[in-house]
């Protein structure tokens, strides 16, 4: 086994384990911490795919900004542990597992058919693609319109968050 495959398997194991721990912890703060671990392992996976800019943005935006917001809101609301997680058996949960298995099987069959024997190694220009100067150049030339619309989305989100959170207690 090559060192690249070893790194991939370690990172894949960390990300899957932290995701499973995230959805099974009753305490929301522990869930948030495991989600941060998952984001960091995904960031290193982006580095193995030669996407340097996306890896840095992943740490800054997701593990930094978004998760701080989550932890801040959890702290603000002073939440208790979830009780229903400890139930032994539940018909709704059984249906959920069946549905999830169907989704998994469908996509897995599609993936197995479409990618077998193709895309065995990264493209030759993949190192060039992930560099910040290349992405910045593309962002301000070919993708300038979506980039400007991004500012519109952010201003709508800011105004919406203020309007929703400012409302007085009824």
């Amino acid at each position, binding site marked *: 086994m090559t060192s690249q495959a070893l790194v991939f398997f370690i990172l894949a194991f960390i990300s899957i384990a932290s995701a499973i721990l995230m959805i099974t912890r009753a305490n929301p703060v522990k869930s948030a911490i495991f989600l941060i671990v998952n984001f960091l392992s995904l960031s290193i996976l982006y580095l193995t795919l030669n996407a340097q800019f996306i890896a840095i943005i992943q740490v800054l*935006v997701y593990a930094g900004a978004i998760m701080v917001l989550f932890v801040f809101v959890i702290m603000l609301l002073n939440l208790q542990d*979830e009780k229903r997680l400890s139930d032994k058996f539940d018909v709704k949960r059984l249906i959920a597992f069946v549905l999830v298995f169907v989704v998994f099987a469908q*996509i897995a069959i599609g993936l197995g058919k479409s990618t077998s024997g193709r895309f065995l190694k990264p*493209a030759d220009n993949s190192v060039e693609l992930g560099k910040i100067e*290349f992405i910045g150049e593309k*962002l301000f030339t070919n993708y300038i319109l979506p980039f400007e619309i991004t500012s519109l989305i952010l201003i709508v989100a800011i105004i919406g968050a203020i309007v929703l959170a400012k409302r007085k207690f009824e």
Partner: protein
Amino acid sequence: MIPLSWYLFLSLILFTIGVLGVLIRRNAIVIFMCIELMLNSVNLALVGFSSYIGNEIGQMLVFFVMVVAAAEVSVGLAIVIAIFRNRLTVNIDEINLLKW
């Protein structure tokens, strides 16, 4: 070298865990976190395609997905806070005003 399908299967597994979390959890904030997990798994697939096919469209899309995710989280958490003020709970079984 690692084939692209490994990354795609990892992305699929993470996405499925996210769907499962949305279905079995009852805490609105944890459901939001599961949605973030699903968005991230799709980002992984997009970056993988971008790197293996050799064009930049996937990484551009990931950039915009992150912007939309940031906006979605800020508005969503504001909604959660507004609901908590009115009902003093974030358990989605007890938030049933629109149910009939």
